[in-house]
């Protein structure tokens, strides 16, 4: 009697009638995939923002020399002009040697000496208040220089759009995964209830409300999802931690830079899996109980 007061009460539902092991395995795999897509999205977004930030802090100016002026002289004058513009941290004329070094990997040594290479000025912008392309162009025009300013806005836009697309795709993947997990729980709930018709009827005849019966299925599948979600998240965490450990701050590729904090963002996965399971089990159970009468 005394022992009974402290013993755990048995579940009012029979065990494993809804294929719980199969469901747990499926949810664990889905959670693993959801975790990977979440980390992938975060890493891709981080890489894209890093690239965009870098592009935003630089501009390239192409200078066309006037009659009687060499390209190097025009570039030096442009660099001097730009250095005085507010929002410019540094402006440096690119010498021919540096320009040839940039082109050598694509064109080779043979043609470079005869190639007319554009005269460029590399501008590093002030990170706190960068100068705009318009203000740079205006300063160059005032100094009587024929030049074109490229603030990399085209590339930056592409990179930012790509980052947004990857985030949307990751969100879609996450929602699809959550939907698949919810559908699996709903299916298991239906199967469990079909196998336990007699039990449900007995519970109902002994005073159980539909909400209480649905609560039993919620508790069962919520726990299954929480444990399975925990397993899936733990495996994903181990994988991310392993990649971070092996690849350092850049992960295995610069396109997906990983951080140790990425491991932590996976920790709510069991809670999310349980929430999806609780909702799916409740709606399914209540709908089925309502349809029974």
């Amino acid at each position, binding site marked *: 009697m005394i022992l009974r007061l402290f013993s755990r009460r048995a579940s009012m539902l029979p065990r494993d009638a809804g294929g719980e092991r199969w469901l747990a395995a499926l949810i664990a795999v889905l959670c693993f995939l959801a975790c990977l897509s979440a980390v992938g999205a975060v890493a891709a977004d981080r890489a894209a923002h890093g690239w965009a930030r870098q592009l935003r802090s630089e501009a390239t100016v192409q200078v066309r020399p006037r009659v009687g002026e060499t390209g190097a002289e025009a570039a030096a004058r442009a660099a001097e002009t730009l250095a005085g513009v507010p929002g410019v941290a540094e402006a440096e004329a690119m010498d021919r040697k540096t320009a040839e070094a940039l082109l050598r990997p694509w064109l080779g040594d043979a043609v470079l000496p005869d190639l007319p290479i554009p005269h460029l000025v590399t501008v590093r912008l002030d990170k706190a208040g960068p100068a705009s392309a318009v203000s740079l162009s205006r300063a160059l025009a005032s100094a009587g220089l024929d030049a074109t300013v490229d603030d990399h806005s085209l590339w930056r836009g592409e990179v930012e759009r790509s980052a947004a697309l990857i985030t949307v795709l990751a969100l879609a993947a996450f929602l699809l995964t959550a939907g698949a997990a919810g559908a699996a729980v709903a299916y298991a709930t239906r199967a469990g209830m079909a196998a336990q018709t007699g039990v449900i009827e*007995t519970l109902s005849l002994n005073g*159980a*409300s539909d909400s209480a019966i649905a609560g039993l299925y919620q508790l069962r599948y919520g726990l299954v999802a929480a444990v399975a979600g925990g397993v899936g998240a733990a495996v994903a965490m181990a994988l991310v931690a392993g990649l971070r450990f092996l690849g350092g701050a850049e992960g295995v590729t610069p396109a997906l830079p990983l951080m140790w904090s990425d491991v932590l963002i996976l920790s709510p996965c069991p809670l999310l899996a349980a929430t999806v399971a609780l909702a799916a089990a409740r709606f399914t159970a209540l709908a089925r109980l309502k349809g029974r009468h």
Partner: protein
Amino acid sequence: MSVQPRRATRSAPATDTVRLSGVGFGYAATHRALRNVNLTLPSGSFHFLTGPSGAGKSTLLKLLTLQERPDAGTLHLFGEDATMAPRRALPDFRRRTGVVFQDFRLLDHLSVFDNVALPLRLAGGKQIDYAADVEEMLDWVGLGDRTEDRPPSLSGGEKQRLAIARAVVAGPDLILADEPTGSVDAKMGERLLKLFQSLNRLGATVLIASHDEALAERSGATVLRLEGGRLHGGGA
């Protein structure tokens, strides 16, 4: 056999526990299981419902447990119209009704103790509060030494006693029993009858459906007879 169920502290309601007026029910359009049944069970009354197989006894109990609804007439339980009671209202009616099913409807995955405790758990009770009542109830029906066993390991008579213990443990206002002595020997049948009589003395309204007319006569209860879906006898 001493009875100490919790309903001893409950005052008996003043209204009729059951009132059926012109109730009809059919499983199919061509087969009427119950026809124009009029029945009143006053609070604290004890009735036996007899009749041959197929007379409609189980169907009448199904109406009283709200598993089925009458397709004609009205059904009042505990003074409330339950004819078309919404599904959300059923738990309240059912918690006031203890039912001994002919097929017992025990939960095989639960222990004997947990089967008896089921109505108390479903009513929101805590194990620490009801454990003693359940143990006492199991002692009372002679299953005190089988508390941890599962129903499949019990004999037919033990299952019957277990089903009765579950039906009465919460001290219901109405006790319905469908052939409660069908699986026990005569001695146990008499013992169970005394159990129902004890509960009735404590204020519960009791209706026992049985084909054992001799037992019904010996009980001293009002005997109703159901034949071809029509009710005859006292209370009808």
